């Protein structure tokens, strides 16, 4: 986790305003509500965790924020401007790294710059992003040669190279083994601190939410409503055995209906 400190590429994260957003899936014509009047304001540069039972609609909220789908009702604003479609200022990192298997690590990381015709003059940004996630030595490797953690780091670099102002993390560590997960949790905090961007993390791991985020939003079962909004402003780096963290963990589990 010792990396050369790099100057923040992004000056500052964006503010996200979610205004009474409701959304439903259509399954064989019948609407299945997944989000119910979500109201949420996220300050610029904040690290917020969305916590909730699986299938509650957390990921849908991220897809709406990414602009991949429009909400059925309500609106989402980024720095006061309505989100109308996908944009490289708001990037998603999925649970599955979804790297293009036919491209090398470098090719995958270059994707956004290439798609917008910026690659020719910005190759150094690709190298910087690879260095930021510690993959400089693997630039020419293909995805099938990477471990799960390396693949997810590549996916992070692919997002970071575009200088997003909002990073949407959809359970990015969900499929990793326990040790890799710990390492990457530390790296996520470091990347967030270095870049100053706004980060929203979807997770169903209470501990992960408490170790990473400054604010934990607890969502209900589908259709998701906000059950609790918990400030979590302990200084970083945080420790899992901190009594304060353990107390909050118990508190959140109780909200989720697990009093043990």
């Amino acid at each position, binding site marked *: 986790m010792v990396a050369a400190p790099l100057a923040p590429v992004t000056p500052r994260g964006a503010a996200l305003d979610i205004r009474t957003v409701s959304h439903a899936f259509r399954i064989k014509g019948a609407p299945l509500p997944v989000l119910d009047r979500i109201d949420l304001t996220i300050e610029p540069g904040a690290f917020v965790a969305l916590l909730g039972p699986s299938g509650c609609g957390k990921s849908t909220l991220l897809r709406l924020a*990414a*602009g*991949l789908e429009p909400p059925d009702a309500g609106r989402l604003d980024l720095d006061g401007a309505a989100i109308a479609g*996908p*944009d*490289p200022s*708001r*990037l*998603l990192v*999925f649970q*599955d790294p*979804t790297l*293009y*298997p*036919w*491209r090398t690590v470098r090719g995958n990381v270059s*994707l*956004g710059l*290439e*798609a*917008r015709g910026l690659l020719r003059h910005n190759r150094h940004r690709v190298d910087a992003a690879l260095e930021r996630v510690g993959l400089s*030595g*693997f630039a*020419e*490797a*293909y*995805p*099938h*040669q*990477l*471990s799960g953690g*390396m693949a997810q780091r590549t996916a992070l670099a*692919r997002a970071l190279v*575009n200088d997003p102002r909002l990073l949407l993390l959809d359970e990015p560590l969900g499929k990793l083994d326990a040790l890799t997960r710990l390492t990457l949790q530390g790296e996520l905090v470091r990347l967030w601190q270095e870049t100053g961007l706004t980060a929203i993390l979807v997770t169903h791991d209470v501990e992960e939410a408490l170790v990473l985020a400054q604010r934990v939003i607890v969502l209900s079962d589908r259709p998701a409503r906000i059950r609790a909004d918990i400030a979590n402003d302990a200084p970083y780096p945080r420790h899992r055995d901190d009594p304060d963290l353990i107390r909050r963990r118990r508190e959140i589990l109780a909200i989720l209906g697990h009093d043990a």
Partner: protein
Amino acid sequence: MTSALSNALPRRGSAGPAAERGAAKNPARPRIGDAAAGLRRTGAIGWILVAAGAAWLSVAAVSLGLPEDGDFPYTAVFAQGAAALGGLLILAGLVRTRLGRPGARLGHWGPWLLVLGLGLIAWELVTAKYALLPMPFFPPPQAILEVFLEDWPKLGGSILASLKLLAGGYVLGALAGFGLGVAVGWSRRAGYWVHPVLRFVGPLPATAWLPLAFFVFPSSWSASTFLVALATGFPVTVLTWSGIAAANRSYYDVARTLGASQSFLIRKVAIPAALPHVFVGLFMGLGASFAVLVVAEMLGVKSGLGWYLQWAQGWAAYANMYAALIAMALMCSSLITLLFRLRDRVLSWQKGLVQW
């Protein structure tokens, strides 16, 4: 075909620099049933090669030593060739360890060379020597050798004519099929119009169009090109389309959030994702195009291997027919090999490809 083969043969671009390979999760898989390695380990002398050499020397001895039932002017040439090969194989077996990699490769084919030699002896005995098989239909090996040595201008010319016709039709069909597949896979409107046609007409064997094509097209050559293209185009279209349809939806989500345009999505996401399927289509199309090619040449075009086959049969020149079949097998399998090489190169990012 399979993992044993693909493990035995080195693959281009299967791993990065050594340092990376160590850290990355791609350890050497165990070699299962590597027959060649087993044979290579047996000792200094390659007994299997010596045995194969002995078999080929016996081919020569049988050909020259026994009286023939019939008139075969090339028996001596055939025997000399077999004897020379037999001698070389024995020599190679004795000094095998000094031959390095070529020696190992030769050792790998030792059992095959032995069986081929034994097969030739049997063939020689049941044809030229004892005429156990009805004669004009089953010529001895020296009669086929005679065709290759005497009739090679005509045979070679037929191969070239076939290749020319095939290449034109195949390239045309592959390009059209690829374009159509991308259009159907990408655009709802193209899918609406093309899909029913494809479903209705596609399964029709291309050869069924033959009578129609021969009077619609100005020449039999253009008609045959069209038929070969048709036979190639159908599988290429269907597989390109299914390749694009089967591409992971998240690939598109990722590219869209990164600011990709429609054309970028097609060129850099949909097509690369579909390529493994496209190559299956190209492979199936090549097989289908061989079939159409031969039928078209037999029925209309006055050149090519199909025509040569037909001509040989008409003159009861069965040795020529076998020679043409061997030439055709060589041509077709070389083309398939070429296609697989191309695929290995283009799809070097994939792991665990079938080796041809």
